[in-house]
């Protein structure tokens, strides 16, 4: 009895707080179109070879290690090559400027030898993502992400009400899809969300 009550309360509060996102269908389509354009350009501009150099071997080595006495082991060993990170992040920021509204372009990378898992590698200033659960180092790969990685096709995702993400492939010099970008925005931006 209590759990359904809490769920209802929580959902009610969320809608009361954020407000039910409303935008005319035309405007929503226009946003989606812009995000698709950003994603298309991003696929060309983001250098997959550099992306593959971002997460260090030490970080990869600890990513799935669990030690009961050391529950932050993976996070404590998470490290990146800052030169590669900065190069790609700057590109992602510039890509986000192509949108006429606040948008982020995030980088996601699959994890070698761990099929079905994916990690967010770079986030940006609006702290928006339709897929990232705050704080997680890696997560299960969403089927739509898997589609992008397997087929190289762009996929538009509107799973969460009020959110639009366009997923697009990132290629390396061999022509392999090595990651994906998530171009994302919200119909109603919450200025206080994720300020933590």
């Amino acid at each position, binding site marked *: 009895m209590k759990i359904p009550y*809490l769920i209802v309360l929580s959902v009610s*509060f969320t809608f*009361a*707080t954020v*407000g039910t996102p409303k935008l005319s269908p035309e405007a929503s389509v226009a946003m989606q179109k812009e995000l698709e354009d950003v994603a298309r350009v991003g696929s060309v501009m983001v250098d997959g070879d550099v992306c593959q150099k971002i997460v260090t071997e*030490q970080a990869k080595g600890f990513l799935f290690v669990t*030690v009961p*006495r*050391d*529950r*932050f*082991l993976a*996070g*404590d*060993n*998470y*490290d*990146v*090559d*800052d030169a590669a*990170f*900065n190069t790609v*992040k*700057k590109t992602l*920021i*510039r890509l986000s400027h192509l949108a006429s509204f606040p948008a982020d372009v995030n980088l996601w990378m699959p994890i070698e030898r761990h099929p079905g898992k994916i990690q*967010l*590698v*770079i*986030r*940006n*200033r*609006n*702290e928006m993502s339709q897929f990232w659960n705050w*704080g997680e*180092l890696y997560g299960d790969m969403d089927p739509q992400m898997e589609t992008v990685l397997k087929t190289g096709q762009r996929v538009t995702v509107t799973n969460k009400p009020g959110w639009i993400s366009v997923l697009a492939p990132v290629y390396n010099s061999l022509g392999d899809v090595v990651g994906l970008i998530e171009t994302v925005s919200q119909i109603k931006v*919450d*200025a*206080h*969300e*994720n*300020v*933590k």
Partner: protein
Amino acid sequence: MRRLQARFVFSFLMAMYSQVLFAADLEALPGFLRSDPFGAIVAPDRSGADLASTLYDAQHRIMLTGSRGGYVSFHLVVKLPLPGLYTLDVKISDPTNKVQIDLFREWFHLTDSDKHYYPDALIPVHSTYSSRLPEPDNRIPQQTAQAFWVDVYIAPDAHPGTLSGSATLKAGTKMMTLPIQVTVLASVIPKEDVVTIDHNSYGSSWLAQQFAASYQRNPDHWFESDQFFGLIHAYHRVFYEHRGIFHQLGYGHSGKVGPEFAPVLDGSGKRKHITNWSLYDRHYGPLLDGTAFSPSRRGPRPIPFVYLPINPEWPASYEFWGEAGYEAEFVNVVSEMERHFREKRWTQTNFEVFFNHKKRYKGFPWDGDEVRFPKDLKYFNEYGRLLKEALPADTPVHFLFRADVSWDMEQQFKVLDGVVKLWCAGGGILSFYKDAPKMLRNRGDVIWYYGGPPSVTDSSAAITEFPLRAWLWGVNGYVHWLTVSPGEDPWFHFDGGQTALVYSGERFGLTEPIPSIRLKIQRNCLQDLAVLDSLKGRKSLDSLRAEAARRYNDSSLDDWWNPRPALADLPSDQWLGSAIDDATRHTQQALQHPAASAAHKVHQYALSLQAEAK
């Protein structure tokens, strides 16, 4: 026959009622002994139960003694074995009104972990309080006891001497009175604290959740409303009134800045500049000039520390990191900030340049918080350079580069000498470096350490370990990393409160936060530390500290430090969390579970020294 039955029922009820009234009781307990809703002392405090009657003299009067400029506190427990109405009246006769009573009803939280009730949130009530047991809103089946926290405030200019008062319980026709005697000492508790106790928080969206009714009345503009800013100021005030400070970090791990935490920027590159201070000044103006504290007993005073919104993405865009544009944006905007603060005469506050981000949260490629990889330190040096460039050498505005350090602190103390001036160090690892506090303070740096509040399921004295340790260690302060997050349902499904020392008062019709027992106990400990430290002219500081430690838990000063472990000589990125736990085992064992009366014994020590001084 029917008449006989009625008579019997009436007589039976009268007899029961008389029993209830006869058994109604009012008990005074020292602040360190918390009652449960059935009149028993909660399990974690029972180690001090032998001192339960120490408040009483031979005539069963409540005897209180306190210095001026502070508080003396105790619990009153109303006990009714059967449901019924009651009125509690607490008063002190002071015609000058320099000694005042603050009465709080104690909320009993049901904890999810052990399914027991613990009192913590304190609901302000009038000194004459009428209700019934079981208390309707606390909804405790078979509740037979209601506890109240009593603060006796003694103003700094109160007359030394003795005052009388009383606590009176009325239940039906039965009345019971406990006389109270307050002895006001001539000594005055120093206004300045010897350790700064900080209460940290992140962002402000939690305010809309905890004050949902207020938010719902104005959802579109609540975050720009007077109610919103008034609420923020009220949070600062509740901590200030309890001898603490409050921090609100205004940006996220990828650099998103809340609108009320920063001025509005416009432009890019060398044309980037501040266009609007409106929200920032409404937020911070009353805090930085001190007027937000005008309604408080401690009086108006600018906050001593505040976070700036500066992060790798603000004010300069990370798009330009390492380029001329980044430097131009950073230097120009920070220069404008310095000018604004100077023109406003906000010169008594330390404005903290602080990087909270961690690379595991994917915003930036270096750790600002708790650096583990030494290569990240180059970013600190670069921001130190930019900051120097932005600020006039003779500015009266205090910008302070702060770093929160753990793994790599020993290295950072060396490498960032002259760059970082405020260190906030993990307590476990700092315990390896006994010489660090003195070394840092000698060169003019400020050193705090950090941890989190204890659970209500710990001994009532657990909260006092942090300020006491800070004083024993010789550091400037202590940070509770999160203090405003009591969980989804602190009232009936409590998580223990390890991220909360205050609660929303909205449930009780209040528009402000309410304090907790733990916050009160911490405040009283801070009073004692301020008193003890002020006596260092008569006794050596080391001897004061040693005796306080002995009385607290029969420890020596060395028990509060750990020997430097072998891992301290390894590169910090090779340390394991479990190895740190092993290396801090000595203090964990020596100091764990302080007895409920531990801080009370330090208080007695402070009182005895004051008596000697007299």
